[in-house]
């Protein structure tokens, strides 16, 4: 299952920010944290499909720009009192390059 695709240099993704990866079938949001961890989740909030890539990143979570749901980047689960989950994908960083496995 580990079919790694090189998507960008780490520096192409802003700290506490994201990039959108467009595939044939969907869009994936790739986030970078303060500590240079990288997470990838489907760019769709479990609530009303808001583009999570456009949210504010803090710690290892992102706040959806449409209705402020907070989504855990590692698990894709909604945090707090909300309930829902979005798909997550594996990532790795090697030599300053970011790889994604779909």
């Amino acid at each position, binding site marked *: 299952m580990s*079919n790694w*695709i090189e*998507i*960008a240099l780490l520096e*192409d*993704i*802003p*700290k*506490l*920010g994201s*990039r*959108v*990866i*467009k*595939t*044939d*079938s969907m*869009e994936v949001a790739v986030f970078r*944290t*303060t500590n240079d961890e990288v997470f990838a989740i489907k760019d769709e909030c479990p609530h*009303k499909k*808001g*583009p999570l890539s*456009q*949210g*504010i*990143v*803090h*710690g290892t979570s992102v*706040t959806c*720009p*449409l*209705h*402020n749901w*907070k989504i855990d980047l590692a698990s894709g689960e909604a945090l*707090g*009192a*909300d309930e829902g989950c979005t798909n997550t994908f594996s990532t790795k960083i090697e030599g300053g390059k970011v790889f*994604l496995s*779909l």
Partner: protein
Amino acid sequence: MKERLVLIGNGMAGIRTLEELLKLDTEQYDITVFGAEPHPNYNRIMLSPVLAGEKTIDDIILNERDWYSENGITLKTGDAVSDIDRVSRKLTTESGEEFVYDRLLLATGSNPFIIPVPGHDKEGVIGFRDIADVDTMLAASKQYKKAVVIGGGLLGLEAANGLMLNGMDVTVVHLMDKLMERQLDMPAANLLKASLEEKGLKFMMEASTAEITGGDRVQGVKFTDGSEIDADLVVMAVGIRPNMALAQDAGIHCERGIVVNDTMQTFDPRVYAVGECVQHRNICYGLVAPLFEQAKVAANHLANMGIARYEGSLTSTKLKVTGIDLFSAGDFDEAEGDETLVLQDPAAGVYKKLVIRDNKIKGAVMYGDTMDGTWYFQLLREGTDISAFRSTILFGQHDLGDAGHGDETRVAALSNDAEICGCNGVCKGDIVDAIVKKGLFTLDDVRAHTKASSSCGSCTGLVESILASTVGEGYDAAPSKKAICGCTEHSHDEVIGSIKEYKLKDMQSVRSFLKWKNEDGCATCRPALNYYLLARWPEEYKDDAQSRFINERAHGNIQKDGTYSVVPRMFGGLCTPSDLRAIADVCDKYEVPEMKVTGGQRIDMFGIKKEDLPPMWKDLSDAGFVSGHAYGKAMRTVKTCAGKTWCRFGTQNSTGLGVKLEDLTWGSWMPHKFKLAVSGCPRNCSEATIKDFGVVCVDSGYELHIGGNGGIKVRVTDLLCKVETEEEVLEYCGAFTQKYREEAHYLERTAPWVERMGLDYVKKAVVEDADNRKALYERFLVGQKVAQIDPWKARAEGEASHEFNKIEITAA
């Protein structure tokens, strides 16, 4: 090895403290909880509805046994702690087990006071305190007929009501001449007594109990005047006493309760105490509301954060008897120099009294219509000067709920399917269910679980009222000092002040100086900090794009389908044929699906794909347009009318002045959106009196109006002053704007800001003090040098291109 924290008392105060502690630190302690009752933590204030048959015990359990195990907490019920040895830090239980602690938290609550008259220890004489008492009462109601409740206070009346609903013949015996004498004045107490009598309760007032008569079991109650009544059950509800025996035996300083300081610490630094067992600043609280704040403070210190202080609570009361609406707060006994406002409508069963001192509410009593209780309580807690709306204050807060709800806003009368939050479609039943089933006590909790009042906020008052009427006195009124968010204890004012005073010039310095709990902050505090730094240090602070909400980062309004809208600036609403042609060409080129004219006299283009934004902006920029900032907490538009160039009524050149004002103010970031308008005459066609800054031209000059709002809560402006020249208009506008930019809380519009600070305060700073006005204006101009760089042009030329470009891959 982890430190050992032991909690004695498995009730609401202690467990709430643990919950607050676990939010801060889950790793620091091994936690053990001792509870004398055989139940997990339950909501004690809901015992009355259980007795009344409106709820079951299961409904009022707050923490199931699973909660303890999931959080690694050892729960010991039914084996009470009998001794504390503070020297060797050791506890002994009744069964003889021993436990060592590093820190100890006492939350032993209180005991009902049993009047020590002869016969008080007979079978059938009880207090009203726990599940066992409720069980005793319910059992008695099946077997016996006559009940006597001694004590006409809150608890006594709720007990009496419950027993009556269970079919008993109930007499309430009260020592004083009015019911609930600590919460009610005479007229309200009489109204209450009359409605309870109508429901079937009997009362004996000014009756002093001398003896409980009978054999093993109670048979009657005898009074000091020699009279006697029959009783099969006697409930003593004459008050509570802090349960401090354990602490006293251990030599911890106690007076009427266990004495604690502002950090909830007892005289033994290893021992903390919270809840009803505590005496803080000479007050013992018998209500539940203060414990929420106490729990937060104790948790903060147990987690070694050491910054929170408990400074006492103001409490309010609400009687939980279905069908009776009663609210009281503060001190309503008039003293010398107090004034009283009263509204009395005996036919409708409505009574409201406010006691005023120095133009501030000191106390409130309400009966029949308690809709505005939470509002009055808020005014009381915040010490708001009410002189501006004193003449209408008794009629209530007009902005509760959406406009036009009228009597529908009486919370108690609303049906469960009545919609409360129009933004999120939340009904009253949803809110009540969530409060009861999930054990919610605060507005924030209710927002998180139901989303009610979490969008536009206009139904906040209604939601608070539902919360208050559902949980009764346990309702945790939001503290008047509100922290910016969960990352910090500090309020907006403290943060604004620190940034200025300690010259904090980047976000990391603010967060470390003020000891933020989360390294990155969160989606609530980051945009606020970014704004405060930008407003205070415009030339030094570097704007942080990742701390801006997406609209301000992408310089367009995100729509529900993830596309954006584009609104070019048209200064003063003026445009030319070539402007319109350029916009039309852009719409054709990018296949814009919909256009409309906005309320601020601009053209809005909808449905733009994010990647199309920079090229579209380039075309607009080439045609001479700059960003309209229609997406930002920023200066939005200056709306104008035709003015004297064309209009036969016009007194001044309103369009020309509008363009000058927009030239001056465009691009400036604000705490919230900020709108201006200029009307050419008092007919006010550009609606300047519902704008943040409005100019109404008159023959002799210009009236300047501030603090208007046309949104959720319509507010007409206040007149700031009148000036004679356009130059003055610009200077006053810049100065007022800067005052607002420097001092308002992030996301606070000018309307609530002016209401909060008072018009006089603004006038003093902007009108009366000419030097200060000039200084404010100068600072505004400095900020504008940085702000008036068109973000669209910059992005069309390649800035922040990562924001707009997707990375395309072909999945293998």
